[in-house]
């Protein structure tokens, strides 16, 4: 559990990156901080592991103010995954993953074993262990980043736009894996993105921020789409440009294509059992369906 209590951050140059921000991140959830560039997402995230100290207010982890904790020790208990993976370029994959265990004094043998487990967990081929980051693809690097973040079995995992730099194909695969992983390990994850699609796909809870880390809306993905709190949220979701207001059209093969206001196809409408919708059962499976991962997804 992470709690922000009226946190403000004013940088030395006078920039107020975060103004009077309060939020609870419940234990075991995946909370997404979304918002466009410069709104203070990274600053908020870095307050948790004391890479940034708040100018006023408090950040609590499990009820205890982090200001009172030794930063180095604190950071070793909190995983951190960043954009472009932030891997140490002069360390092999295995050495990167083993960083925190090794810093914590775990012996070489045990660290190596842990590395193997972690690579398996994030779906990395064991053969890659002795490569250097530059010898990996972007997606592989991100996986190593996640593995490294998890290697010391942290209570909290901070992820700062971890998938921002990878191919969209790889990105959605990584997102899928992260959801699955989160279901498995139940670590509290704080995830930063400026991509609303990603936020909707991943978050148990989404916090959409304006400049200065001003909360525009906080809620589940579904609440965001169905009940955007204000115009800012609508704009950010693309609702005001009709991107998320969809129309049905019948395609040549008879299936129902759902298109947005620009005629851009969003997908094919299907019945809950996965067969294409013939248009005969409107309203089926309405009212707040099952959580992802619980329902057997069609085609998955």
């Amino acid at each position, binding site marked *: 559990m992470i709690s922000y209590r009226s946190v403000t951050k004013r940088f030395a140059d006078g920039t107020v990156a975060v103004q009077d921000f309060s939020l609870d991140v419940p234990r075991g959830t995946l909370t997404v901080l979304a918002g466009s560039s410069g709104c203070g997402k990274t600053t908020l995230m870095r307050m948790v592991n004391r*890479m940034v100290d708040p100018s006023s207010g408090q950040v609590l982890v499990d009820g205890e103010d982090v200001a009172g904790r030794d930063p180095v020790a*604190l*950071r070793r208990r909190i995983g*951190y995954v*960043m954009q472009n993976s932030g891997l*140490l370029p*002069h360390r092999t994959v295995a050495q990167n993953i083993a960083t925190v265990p090794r810093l914590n004094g775990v012996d070489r043998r045990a660290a190596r074993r842990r590395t193997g487990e972690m690579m398996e967990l994030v779906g990395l081929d064991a053969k890659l262990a002795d490569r250097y980051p*530059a010898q990996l693809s972007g997606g592989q690097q991100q996986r190593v980043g996640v593995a490294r973040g998890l290697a010391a079995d942290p209570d909290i995992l901070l992820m700062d736009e971890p998938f921002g730099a990878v191919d969209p194909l790889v990105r959605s695969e990584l997102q899928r894996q992260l959801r699955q992983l989160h279901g498995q390990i139940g670590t509290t994850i704080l995830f930063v993105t400026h991509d609303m699609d990603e936020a909707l796909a991943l978050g148990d809870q989404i916090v959409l921020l304006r400049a200065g880390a001003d909360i525009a809306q906080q809620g589940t993905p579904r609440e965001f789409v169905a009940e955007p709190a204000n115009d800012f949220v609508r704009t950010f979701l693309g609702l005001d440009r009709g991107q998320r207001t969809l129309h049905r059209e019948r395609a040549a093969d008879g299936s129902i294509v759902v298109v947005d206001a620009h005629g851009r196809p969003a997908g094919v409408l299907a019945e809950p059992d996965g067969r294409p919708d013939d248009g005969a059962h409107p309203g089926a499976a309405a009212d707040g369906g099952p959580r992802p991962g619980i329902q057997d997804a069609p085609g998955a």
Partner: protein
Amino acid sequence: MNWVLDNLPLIADRTWAHLATSLPAILAALVISVPLGWLAHRYRILNGPVLTGAGLMYAIPSLPLFIVLPVLIGTGVRDVVNVVVALTLYGVALLVRSVADGLDGVPPEARGAAVALGYPPLRRFLTVDLPLAGPVILSGLRVVAVSTVSLCTVGAVLGIPSLGLLFTDGFQRGILAEILTGIVLTVVLALALDRLLVVLGRLAMPWTRAEAGA
């Protein structure tokens, strides 16, 4: 080339003396430059003074420096230490900038990642910042090695043994072969040292090859 064949022991002696003077200077320059470069990198206010000061040191003519140094550090004029110290100063003048540049060039993501992972500061400097600055420092060190070996010859004007004595002696006696031998050996020594550093660098920084190949 008769001269060379007739004077092999002398040439070996001079070469050895040359190495014995320049190698310690190169090493000392490296050891001194790292903390100085770190200061210049870490504290913006020191950056200008340290780097400009280092740059100007290079503008001091070497001959008077060789003569003034003994007064300042209290050694005998013919003491090899003088030349080593003078060469070290010139080396530091070049290398401080490389160290500062190298540290400045450490990718902020890597540095940030190391902080986030919970590296204590000194350990982070030694095991993350310094190795990542390594390639830039190495290229600076190569320049320092080459120019130190070359500069070392000036000490000969004061009679401090090095390959430079082949220049002064050859000059007085008008023996071109002797001067040429000195020049060729100095260049060979410098370039061999340069190669050696490249090889050592490759061994010490295996990831640079991975990056080049990727």
